[in-house]
């Protein structure tokens, strides 16, 4: 119900307001980090992270390992299918 899109944090726009620049398929937009930055941490520490963006806020740090895990499961499925084919 809530459009969310993965984007990479490519720059810090304004550390004071926790504003970063996120890139989605070559498109950059300012995004607020308040929900994903550990209290007191330097926004720059999130450079290179992928986040799930919703209405101009980064709402989740995307866990690349979990993503791989999910895909691995699916790949196994395929391997298995090949077997039974």
């Amino acid at each position, binding site marked *: 119900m809530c*459009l969310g899109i993965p984007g990479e944090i490519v720059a810090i726009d304004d550390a004071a307001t926790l504003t970063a620049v996120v890139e989605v398929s070559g*498109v950059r937009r300012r995004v607020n980090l308040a929900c994903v930055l550990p209290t007191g941490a330097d926004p720059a520490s999130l450079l290179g992270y992928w986040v799930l*963006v919703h*209405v101009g806020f980064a709402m989740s740090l995307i866990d690349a390992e979990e993503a791989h895990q999910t895909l691995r499961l699916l790949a196994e499925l395929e391997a298995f299918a090949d077997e039974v084919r």
Partner: protein
Amino acid sequence: MKTESTDANTSDQGLITLAHGAGGRVMRQLIESICVEAFNNPALALLEDQARLDMAEIAAHGDRLAFTTDSYVVDPLEFPGGDIGTLAVNGTVNDLAVSGARPLYLSCALILEEGLEISRLRRIMASMSDAAGVAGVSIVTGDTKVVPRGKGDGMFINTSGIGVIPQGVELAASRCQPGDCVIVNGTLGDHGAAILQARGDLALEADLVSDCQPLHGLIARMLAVCPQVHALRDATRGGVAGVVYEFAEASGRAIRLFEDQLPVRPSVRGVCEILGLDALHFANEGKLVAVVPREAADSMVAVMREHPAGRDACIIGEVLDGPAGSVQISTLMGGVRLLDLPIGEQLPRIC
């Protein structure tokens, strides 16, 4: 005796005032110093109320006159890849060209908002003139109106166009046949995405560039090599989706598009994903949709790819027998669904 005077009415520092539209001396000076100079041609320079064009010369090109009009209201006036002036020339040239006509003459009617920078007007007129040069058309008649501040949007341009359709060329949306292929000459939605970004409301940044270009050269080449084209239209407002629906409705056929064949630039796709929109609905200003018999489709694509305006040409769909007026899309997942109707405004969504 010569005296230096800052001629605020026509200098590049000045602003358009209502005086520039009042039909008096100030308006004449503006038109003469900007438009007549930029469009430089004998018919316009006469400053009569109408251009007078030799009929025999015109008739030599074919047996039907093509006549079209479009107003251009783009915001912002200047954007990556063009400005309202290039749009106004290319858009109308393309509306002529998709009938197979050779575009010959344009009119240019300006509605200027009080407060427009004269330097900007001059720049846009120059790029109109350049675009007309590239497209090989003459701007032969014009008009200038000025509206009070807040009653316009910088400037609007209307261009109407006259072209001639060569004998034997018969293109019509109604001619789409089952089995025909649907071809586009390149990536979808570049103009719409570029404008969305340039407008700045959504604070998106990307290397988006409008695809604004004239298509008559490409079309002439297409018709020369492959005269069996059934239907042709430029996909502007309403996007490729709009044109494809028009084809399906006018011909009483169905059209099926292939999602995995749709050419979309990554940054255009990025805009679409962020805003929940579809590049099939985005405006283009240099894209055409052609419907051609299947047997001619591959050679047509090959011919198009040789032309600079058709480098990314590809087949994106096919015409089916029915249901009449419907447009389907076979999805990436192998499912088939109806293509969203372009309903109204494209509203960015969060859910």
